C-alpha cells in the first residue's frame, strides 16, 4: 500500500514538472530566439540601435507584419482543438485582400469595404462548413478544394495583365488604405495590430470561459461523450469554420492595407504558418487540447524567426528555414503533448 502511495506521489511530482514544462517551454523558446537574434550582429550594430533586432523600428515592423497571422491564430487554434483543420485560410486571405483592394479602389469607404469583406469571410466559413460538416468530406480534402476555389476566384478578380489590384493611372488607390496596417496609432503600432491583439484577447476568453471553447475541446477530445451530452458537432464546428473564415478575411484586409494592393498570391503559405504556430503552441493533432495564448506565442516565434533570419541569411534560405521550424515543431509537439494517464 505504501509503495503504491509513494509511486503515486512520485507520479504527482513528475506530473507537476511535466505540466510546468508543457506550459512554459514556448515562452522559453521565444525568449531564446529573441536573445539569439539580439546578439547575432552585435559586432555590427549597437544594442537597440538602428538596424538591431530589438530596435524600435525593427520591433514595430515585426509587429506590423505579424498582424495577419495574429488575427488568424486564435480561430485556427479553436478549430484544431475541435479536431478539424482548414487549409484554405491562405487563399481565403488572398481573396479577401483582393476584394478589399477592389472595393477601396472603386471608392468604397472603410465602413463599407471592411464589413463587406468580412461578410465574404463568413461566406468562406459557410462553404467550408458545408463541405466538411454537411457533405462529410474529409477536412483535408475539402479545404484543399476550397483552397483552389478561393485562389482561382482571387486570380480571376484581378484583371488580365495586372498582377494585383493596385493603383493604376486613372484609378489610383486611395492613400488611406495604408492607414489600417501602417499608420501609427498607439505606441507606434497600427490598428491592424491592435485589432489583432483585441481579437486574440477575445478568443483567449472564448476558449477558457465560453461554451464555444468548451465544446470545441469536448468534440475534439471525445466526440461520443460530447454527442451523448447533447452537443451537436455539426453546429459547433460549423461556427468555428465561420470564425476562421472571418478572421482570414480580416487578415486579408490587413495584408492589402499593408501592401496597398490586393495580391491574389499574398496569402500563400499562411496555412503553413498557422500550422507551425499551432504545433509550437502545443495543440494536439487529434484535438481536445490546445491554447490560443500559446499559439499566439508560436506565431510570434515564426515572425521573429522569419524577420530575424532575413538579417542574418539571404532571402533564399527562408523556405528551408520555415520547413525546419515546422519539422522541429512537430518533433517538439510529439515530445511534449502526450497524455500520460497514471496507474
Amino acid at each position, binding site marked *: 500500500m505504501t509503495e503504491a502511495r509513494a509511486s503515486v506521489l512520485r507520479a504527482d511530482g513528475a*506530473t507537476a514538472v511535466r505540466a510546468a514544462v508543457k506550459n512554459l517551454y514556448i515562452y522559453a523558446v521565444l525568449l531564446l530566439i529573441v536573445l539569439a537574434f539580439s546578439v547575432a550582429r552585435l559586432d555590427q550594430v549597437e544594442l537597440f540601435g538602428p538596424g538591431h533586432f530589438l530596435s524600435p523600428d525593427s520591433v514595430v515592423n515585426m509587429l506590423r507584419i505579424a498582424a495577419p497571422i495574429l488575427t488568424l491564430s486564435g480561430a485556427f487554434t479553436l478549430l484544431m482543438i475541435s479536431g478539424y483543420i482548414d487549409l484554405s485560410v491562405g487563399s481565403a486571405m488572398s481573396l479577401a485582400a483582393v476584394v478589399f483592394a477592389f472595393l477601396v479602389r472603386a471608392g468604397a469607404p472603410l465602413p463599407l469595404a471592411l464589413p463587406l469583406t468580412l461578410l465574404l469571410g463568413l461566406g468562406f466559413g459557410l462553404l467550408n462548413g458545408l463541405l466538411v460538416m454537411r457533405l462529410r468530406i474529409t477536412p483535408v480534402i475539402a479545404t484543399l478544394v476550397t483552397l483552389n476555389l478561393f485562389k482561382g476566384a482571387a486570380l480571376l478578380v484581378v484583371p488580365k495583365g495586372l498582377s494585383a489590384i493596385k493603383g493604376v493611372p486613372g484609378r489610383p488607390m486611395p492613400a488611406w488604405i495604408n492607414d489600417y496596417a501602417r499608420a501609427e496609432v498607439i505606441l507606434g503600432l497600427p490598428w491592424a495590430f491592435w485589432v489583432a491583439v483585441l481579437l486574440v484577447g477575445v478568443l483567449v476568453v*472564448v476558449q477558457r*470561459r*465560453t*461554451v*464555444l471553447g*468548451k465544446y470545441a*475541446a*469536448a468534440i*475534439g*477530445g*471525445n466526440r*461520443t*461523450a*460530447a*454527442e*451523448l*451530452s*447533447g*452537443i451537436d458537432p455539426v453546429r459547433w464546428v460549423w461556427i468555428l469554420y465561420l470564425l476562421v473564415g472571418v478572421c482570414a478575411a480580416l487578415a486579408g484586409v490587413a495584408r492589402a492595407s499593408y501592401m496597398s494592393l490586393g495580391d491574389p498570391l499574398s496569402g500563400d503559405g499562411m496555412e503553413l504558418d498557422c500550422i507551425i504556430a499551432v504545433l509550437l503552441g502545443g495543440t494536439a493533432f487529434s484535438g*481536445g*487540447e490546445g491554447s490560443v495564448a500559446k499559439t499566439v506565442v508560436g506565431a510570434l516565434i515564426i515572425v521573429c524567426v522569419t524577420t530575424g533570419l532575413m538579417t542574418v541569411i539571404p532571402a533564399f534560405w527562408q523556405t528551408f528555414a520555415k520547413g525546419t521550424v515546422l519539422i522541429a515543431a512537430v518533433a517538439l509537439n510529439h515530445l511534449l503533448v502526450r*497524455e500520460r*494517464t*497514471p*496507474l
Partner: protein
Amino acid sequence: MDRPDNVLEIRGLVKDYASVRAVNEVSFDVRRNTVHCLVGENGAGKSTLIKILTGAVGRSGGRILLNGREYAPRSPREARQRGISTLFQELNVVDQLTVAENLSLGREDTTLGFLRRTDKVQRMVGVMNSLEPSIDPRQRVSTLSVAQKQIVEIAKAVAAESEILIMDEPTAAISEGEIARLFAIVKRLRERNVTVIYISHRLDEIFELGDAVTVMRDGRHVATRPLAEVKDRAELIRMMLGKAVFEGYQARPAGSREVVLQVKGLSNRKLQDVSFEVRRGEIVGFYGLVGAGKTELARAIYGADPHRGEVLFQGVPLPRRPDQVIEAGIALVPEERRSQGLFTILTVRGNVPVMNMARISRHGFIRAGEERRATREAIRRLRIACSGPEKEAAKLSGGNQQKVVFAKCLFADAQLLLLDEPTRGIDVGAKSEIYAIIRRLAEEGKSILVFSSELPEILSLCDRIHLLYDGAIKGTLENGAGVDSQEVMHVVTGGR
C-alpha cells in the same frame, strides 16, 4: 405528483434480428430507487435489452413504460434526455476537460455564450463531493484512474437528475478497493432518487449490492425476485442455466500425444500467472464471462499484446509478433469479425489467402488461377454459402463471414488455432457447421484453443476446459459426463 412505484415497466418486449429472436417476450418491473440486478449468460439477451433501453437499437415489439409513460427512444441522446443514463465500459468522459467541466457538459448555464458559475454548476459539483469528496473538481479528468472516472460519470448522471442509471459490468476494470468504494456510492444512490440497473456476472456483487434480480436465459425472462428471497448463488445459477441440454460432447480417444504448446506464468496487465499445456489434436477451452481475460490471453499468445512469461510452441519459444507467430504455425480468429478478422470491402478471394500469400504466389507475383482455385477449395471445404470467390465479404451472413475468417487461418497452414468467440452473433445452423469444422480440424491433428463465454459451446467442443476469472485460471476440468455446469458457473462468477 403521483409517481408509480415502478420506475420501469417492460411488457412483452421483443427484438428480432433476421433469423434470431434475441429478446423473446420479456416482461418485468423495476421498482423505484432500488438496485435492480440483471444476470444471465452471454447470449441470454441482457445486452440487447440494455441496447433497447439506452436507445441504441429499436425494439421489434412490446412496450416499455417509464414512470407510467411510453418510452421508445430513437437515440442514446434521447434516452439520456428522458432520464436514463448509462455507464459503459468505454468511458464517456472528456479527458482533456476538468471534472467540473465534465459534470456540466451539455448542461451549462450561459449568458451570451459565457459560462457562468451558477448555483446549478455548484450543485453538480456538490453532488460529486457528496459521492466522493477526494476528487478535486478542478482536476483534469485525464489524471484520474478508471474508477474515479466512473464516479465522475455517475455523478454526472445524478446531477443531471437521471432517474435510472444502467451500469454495465462496471467492476471488470477496477481494483478491489475501488469496487468497495463504488458499491458504497451505488448504495447511496437510492437515497438520491436514482434507480440502478446493475449488470454483472459476478454473483457475489449481486448479493452484496442488489435489492432485486432479474434472470434471463435464451432471450427469455426467467424470474424477477427480491434478493432477499433468493437463497444462494446456487439458486441463481440454476435459474441462469435452466435445464439446458448441451449438445453432446463426443469424447475422443485421449492417447498420449505430444505436447505442442506450453504456457508458463503468462502475465500482463490483465493476466495473472497463467500456465497450461496443450497436446496435439486437443480442443482446449477457456471459459469465462466478460472481463475474465479470454481475449487478452489469446492476443498475448499470438504476440499481438506484450506479456511476461514463457510460451513454447513445439518446444521453441514463440516470437512475440503476429507475423512471426503465423509463420511458426499459429493463427488467430479474432473476437471482432468485422473490424479485426475480415477485410469487408474485399471479396472472399481477397480475404482467404491473406495470411499466407506465398502459397499462391511465385517471386512476389500472385498467380490468379491458383488464388481462385484455392479460394474455391476453401469455399467447398468449409461450405461457405456465397455465389463465388468474387462475392464481397461485407455481403455475406455472419456465419459465412466467420467461415471466411476460418478459411483465412487455415490457409496459413496453422497447426494451432486460437479461436476468440468463434460463433458470437451467428445463427444456430451456422454454429453447428462451424463446430463440425472445428472437430474435423482436431481430428486432422490440429490443436485448437477456444476462448468463449458461451457455456454450451465450450461443453460441446472441448476436451479440457480452463475456467477463467479476473485474468487467472481458477479451475480446470476434463469434459465428459461428470461435468457439473453449476459448479462451472460458480467458479466463473467469482465463487471459490
